[in-house]
């Protein structure tokens, strides 16, 4: 079992550009959540996808958007990049809903640097 995988590992962009980050959930999982972890901070919830729809969203602007595919993999898109978007972006997957406290498995993250 490969666990949660994310690509790319690192990414460097300039202000104003757009970026797409990818996530493949753990086998058997159908829910994907995205978190932003700024340097020295805890992860902050961006949004969550289930059945190809955004189910819940944190306090992030519309520049952050996502998508979930029929195979449950997901993409995070960020438009009009700002310096403050530099962070580690974590993807987490969860199994089919049985209990909201079911463990979320996290990927290693994508380190985004905006220059």
């Amino acid at each position: 079992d490969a666990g949660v995988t994310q690509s790319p590992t690192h990414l460097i962009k300039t202000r104003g550009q757009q970026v797409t980050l990818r996530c493949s959930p753990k086998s058997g999982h159908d829910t994907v959540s995205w978190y932003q972890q700024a340097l020295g901070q805890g992860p902050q919830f961006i949004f969550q996808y289930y059945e190809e729809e955004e189910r819940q969203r944190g306090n992030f602007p519309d520049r952050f958007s996502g998508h979930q595919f029929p195979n449950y993999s997901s993409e995070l898109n960020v438009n009009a990049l700002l310096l403050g978007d530099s962070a580690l972006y974590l993807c987490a997957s969860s199994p089919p809903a049985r209990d909201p406290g079911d463990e979320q498995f996290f990927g290693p993250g994508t380190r985004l640097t905006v220059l």
Partner: protein
Amino acid sequence: AQSVTQPDIHITVSEGASLELRCNYSYGATPYLFWYVQSPGQGLQLLLKYFSGDTLVQGIKGFEAEFKRSQSSFNLRKPSVHWSDAAEYFCAVGPLLSGSARQLTFGSGTQLTVLP
């Protein structure tokens, strides 16, 4: 709104010494509580979780945590720290009762340094 406070930004202990990492939460109902560990270049790994029942929870790697409702705390403990425990530790509070999405709110983390 739910929130988590980890009052210690950085803790240093000697190998073999005991460890306690503090976590306080603010939540409107019985929370789901978690402790995660993050090593450099790694994702978050779940150490333990609390939903209900016994307030002393055992986790992986010899860690345990105690839920104290009266103090709104969920402190992480380990009786004897190993050098490999050096990492960043995050406390998190989980979603509402059944039917809600799994949205975690994390504290800002405690960086643990272990001295030989």
